[in-house]
């Protein structure tokens, strides 16, 4: 196990460096002085410009800037936006809300996705099976912002079941509606994955053995079928998380959740490119780390993984 962890961490390092470098290089490749954009129509004095260039290290060559940034990241300093805010401060303010929203969404998608998928898989060909496949197909094809507007309009405004936007301090109750929207797409994927995995597992020899030796249904289904069907669902959590990051940007913007996603949403609308880039970089870093965590979890759950090269 220890070697698996070490190998997996070592594999993450080039991905981590490569991904941040790629974003950095993309931004760097664009012609034009980013600082001039700060002043709009006015022409800044050369002294001020020189001071700012010095402050943001813009006179250094590309690789020096990049490695300075990377060094700071490893020391826990994620940089400063051109509007003078520290990225750390933005994250401290917004990240807890995003985390709560994401947790709620993950719980919803797993609870409903796994239970619906299990029932659909056990009753293949039934009306429930067909209906859940159809619903998942519709959910997959609805872009998240369309779904968010529909939910906001129908459940929030017309029926009044939820508050259409999140209030001050983002209480848990207000987060339920955005979390449902955020969970919807992954719910569809989890459902389908669980269903096909249950279909495969329920014909395995050990399941027939369990039925054959007379175990009750309440033991065969959760312990023998469900537990072994959950492995692919766990692996897919990483892909789910990527969808979650993008989805959070849209849903937080629409439902006014004071999280990282809304910060990015507003930065895009303000054309604050440096802030867009720094938030995207942070999100990519989180994504890479979460991927690593899920892989380690996977190794813990499925011993076969640890020994495969």
């Amino acid at each position, binding site marked *: 196990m220890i070697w698996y962890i070490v190998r997996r961490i070592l594999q993450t390092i*080039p991905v981590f460096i490569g991904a941040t470098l790629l974003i950095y290089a*993309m*931004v760097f490749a664009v012609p034009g002085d980013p600082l001039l954009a700060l002043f709009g129509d006015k022409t800044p004095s050369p002294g001020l410009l020189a001071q700012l260039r010095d402050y943001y290290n813009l006179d250094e060559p590309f690789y020096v800037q990049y490695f300075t940034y990377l060094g700071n990241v490893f020391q826990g300093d994620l940089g400063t936006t051109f509007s003078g805010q520290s990225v750390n401060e933005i994250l401290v303010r917004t990240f807890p809300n995003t985390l709560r929203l994401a947790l709620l969404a993950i719980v919803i998608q797993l609870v409903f996705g796994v239970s619906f998928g299990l029932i659909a898989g056990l009753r293949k060909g039934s009306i429930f099976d067909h209906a859940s496949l159809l619903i998942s*197909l519709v959910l*997959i*094809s609805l872009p998240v912002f369309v779904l968010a507007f529909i939910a906001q309009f129908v459940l929030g405004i017309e029926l009044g079941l939820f508050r259409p936007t999140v209030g001050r301090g983002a209480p848990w109750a207000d987060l339920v509606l955005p979390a449902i929207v955020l969970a919807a797409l992954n719910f569809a994927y989890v459902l389908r994955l669980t269903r096909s995995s249950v279909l495969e597992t329920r014909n395995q020899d050990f399941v027939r053995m369990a039925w054959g030796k007379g175990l009750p249904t309440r033991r065969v289904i959760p312990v023998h079928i469900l537990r072994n069907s959950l492995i692919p669902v766990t692996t897919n959590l990483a892909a789910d998380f990527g969808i979650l990051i993008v989805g959070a*940007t849209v849903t937080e913007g629409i439902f006014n959740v004071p999280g990282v996603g809304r910060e990015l949403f507003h930065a895009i609308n303000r054309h604050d490119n440096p802030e867009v880039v720094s938030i995207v970089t942070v999100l990519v870093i989180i994504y890479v780390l979460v991927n690593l965590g899920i892989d380690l979890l996977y190794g813990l759950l499925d011993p076969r993984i640890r020994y495969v090269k």
Partner: protein
Amino acid sequence: MSSKTPVRHVPHFVAKVDEGGLGAIDAVRVRERKSNLWLDAWRDLRGRWMFWISAAIILLVVVVALFPGLFTHEPPNDGCLLANSNGGPEPGHPLGYTKQGCDVFSRIMHGTSTSLSVGLIVSLIVVVFGVVLGAFAGFFGGWIDSLLMRFGDIVFAIPYILAAVVIMSMFVHDRNILVISAAIGLFSWPATARILRSEVLRVKQSDYVMASTALGLSKVRTMFTHVLPNSIAPVIVVTTVGLAAAISAEATLSFLGVGLPNNIYMSWGNDISAAQSDLRTNPTTLIYPSIALSLTVLAFIMMGETVRDALDPRARATR
């Protein structure tokens, strides 16, 4: 003693020519229907209602994208009267008006080509990158494989919509269909490359590939004539679903405010985004383009899934 033994007549049976082994080989039934992966898949597809529904929607979308003028005579952008702002349906204007007083139906019809061309160009980019890199990595193996796949891992680590947001933020002044397609496509090929690579690794083991090597075909020729045609099927499936994802991504980028400029391009995403502020008073201007968008995406996803099921003999057998 032995002379008394009667001679046993063992009848020597000589098979007629058409009954022997050689005859059996020769007896290829000429009228037997040809069978290969694609023909089998087609026979399977013919009988599925999901295939015909999605094919019909896709055909309709393509026709609308090519000739929007066949369906509406209203100008989508010019001659909008503010007096009609957020107006309801009228004769000749079945879906009402936008906030700017433009005809909603006409804007949807004219926006189709934007979505479809972005979807197609993204798919082209993804197929070119995915197939070339995936095939090289799988076929040549070794350090080429490691290098290409590690590069794929890096690109894969950046969710493609986030990458597209960064790219589009950099191109403020010259956003067009090519730029937005590149922004989406350049970061979504790794999945295709991985799938093709694993297919190529599987096909590479086959006897016919070894035979073509034994016959002295060059590696490149073997790859193009034997390996690629036999490993391309899953790529077609992911590409169809990916086309749907690209259309959805274009709309999402427009919604986020980094899509195509809405004064030049008609785009469903832009229209949905613009209708957002009137959600409470006039939800239909938001709902109609959303329906067009979702139906198109649904059609391509359904097409991808039915084709996937049809191409997979195991799925065919257990269905």
